[in-house]
C-alpha cells in the first residue's frame, strides 16, 4: 500500500552488530521501529532497509555508535501519497 523507490546500491541503515549486542540495542530497535525493519536471526540483527519509513526513531533510541542511520539518497525511499 505504501510506495517506495528502493535504492538498490546503498543501504541507509547499518548496524554495528558487536556494539548492538554489548549495549542491548537490538531488542530496542525491534521494539521501537514502526516499520518492522529490524529482526533478530541467530545472534545478528537483520535490517530490511527498503521498508524504512524514515522517521529516525531507531537512531534516537539506539546506543551511541550501535547504529548508523541517515536519510536515503535524494529521490529514494518512502514516497508518501497522503502524508
Amino acid at each position: 500500500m505504501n510506495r517506495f523507490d528502493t535504492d538498490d546500491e546503498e543501504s541507509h541503515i547499518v548496524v554495528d552488530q558487536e556494539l548492538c549486542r554489548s549495549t542491548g540495542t537490538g531488542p530496542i530497535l525491534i521494539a521501537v521501529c514502526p516499520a518492522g525493519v529490524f529482526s533478530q536471526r541467530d545472534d545478528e540483527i537483520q535490517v530490511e532497509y527498503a521498508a524504512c519509513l524514515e522517521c529516525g526513531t531507531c537512531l534516537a533510541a539506539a546506543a551511541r555508535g550501535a547504529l548508523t542511520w541517515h536519510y536515503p539518497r535524494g529521490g529514494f525511499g518512502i514516497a508518501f501519497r497522503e502524508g
Partner: protein
Amino acid sequence: MTTGAGELDFDVIVVGAGPAGATAAHRLASRGLSVVLIERGEVPGTKNLSGGVLYGAVLEGLFPDFAGQAPIERRITRHVTTFLTPDSAVSLDYASRGLAAPVNGVTVLRARFDPWSAGKAEEAGAFLMPGVRVDALLTEPGPGGRPQVIGVRARDEVLRASVVVAADGVNSFLAQGIGLRGKQPPRHLAVGVKAVVRMSAERIEDRFGVAPGEGAAHAIVGDCTLGIAGGAFLCTDRESLSLGVVLRLDALLSSGRSAIEVFEHCSQHPGLAPYLRDCEIVEYGSHLVAEGGHGMLGEIVGDGLVVVGEAAGLTINNGLTVRGMDLAIGSGVAAADAVVEAIGTGDVSSVGLAGYRSRLEDNFVLKDLRTYTGAPGFLERERLYGAYGELAAELFRGVSRFDGTPHRHLRVLARTAWKGSRMRLRDALGDGWAGVRAL
C-alpha cells in the same frame, strides 16, 4: 563576518520544504533575496507526515483565506477527548460551528498540502530543488574558532550562501552535524505511527456528526496505547481518516511492547470500531515527535545558520493536542525576517542573526512554548494513561446502570469508584494541581 559576495550561489539556502522551510523561503524571496529551497523528496510532502491538525491562524495572517485556496482536508468543528478502557469510553465532546470561521484547526495531508506551500515560495521567486539530500553544512573556521556556516554539501556538489536555514525536520542532522544541537533523551521523544484509512465523505460526515467540509479531531488516552504514556488520535480528512498513536519512547521501551503491536491494538480497539468499521488502510507511516517543549529548545542560531520548525524542537504537547506545523510556520516567519535584517547589515554571525530568537520570543511561538513549560513533566505522570480513565468509567457505569437493586446517590457512586481505583488522594490532588499549573 561574511563571505565574499562574488562566491555566493544564493543569498540564502533553505534546507527542507516542509511548513517551516517553505514559509521562510517564501518570505525571503518576497523580500527580494535569492533563495534556493532544497528538498530531499522528489516532490515536497512525499517525506512528510503529521498527526493531521494544523492550527491555521498564523497561516491566515500570511495568506488570507488560505483555507479557501490551499488543499486542506476539513475545518475542524468538533473536538472529542476520550478516556478509553478495554470495554468503555468516557468522552468530552466539544462541537461548535464557530470553529469553522474564522479558521482555527484544519486537517491536512502533507503530500497534498506541502506542494501548495512550496509552490507559494516558488511564486515569490524561490528556486525549488527537489530530490536532493543535503549531506552536511559547509563550514569554515569563524570568529572564536566556532564553525561559520557558508553553505551546504550534497553529494559532490557544493552550494554557497550568506545564510543557511535548517528546516530539515525533527532529526535535525544539519545542526547536530556542527555540534550546535545534541541528541535528545528518549523521554523527550515520542514515536508517532499513523494509518490513512479511505472512507467516503458522506460516511465520514454521518459517523463523526459533522457537516460537509467540516471535521472532527478525536484525542484518546488510556487503553488505546495499552496505558503507555502518549495517546491516540483520529481525525477526519476529506475522504479518509487519519488514525494514529503517539508513544513516548521511554514509556514504550519500559512497557516491553513494540510500536507495531500498540498501533495494531489501537486500530482494532472495540472503542474505536464504530468509526473504523468497513474501511481500508491506504497508507501507513511514522514520524518522530519532539516533546520536550521549552526545555528542549537549546541552540537555534549559529554563525550563518538559523534552525527552524521541528529541527529546532518546536513542538508542544499539552496532553490533548500536539502542535508543530503552526509553530514551524511562525518560526519560518521569524527566521526570514531576522535573515533579511542580518544580510542587510552585513553581519550574518550569530550576533547578527540574534533577531531570530528575539522575534520568536515576541511572537506566539516561544510564548506558547513557555506557557506549556510544565506540560512534559506533568504528562510523565502515569495515572493519566490508566487510572483516571478507569475511575471515570466506573463512575459512569454506576450512574448509567439500573439492575433492579436500589440505585445509589451520585456521591456514594463517586466514593465507591474512588475506593475501587486504589489511588491515594495525595496523588490525585498532586496530579490535579500539577495539571492546573502546567496547562
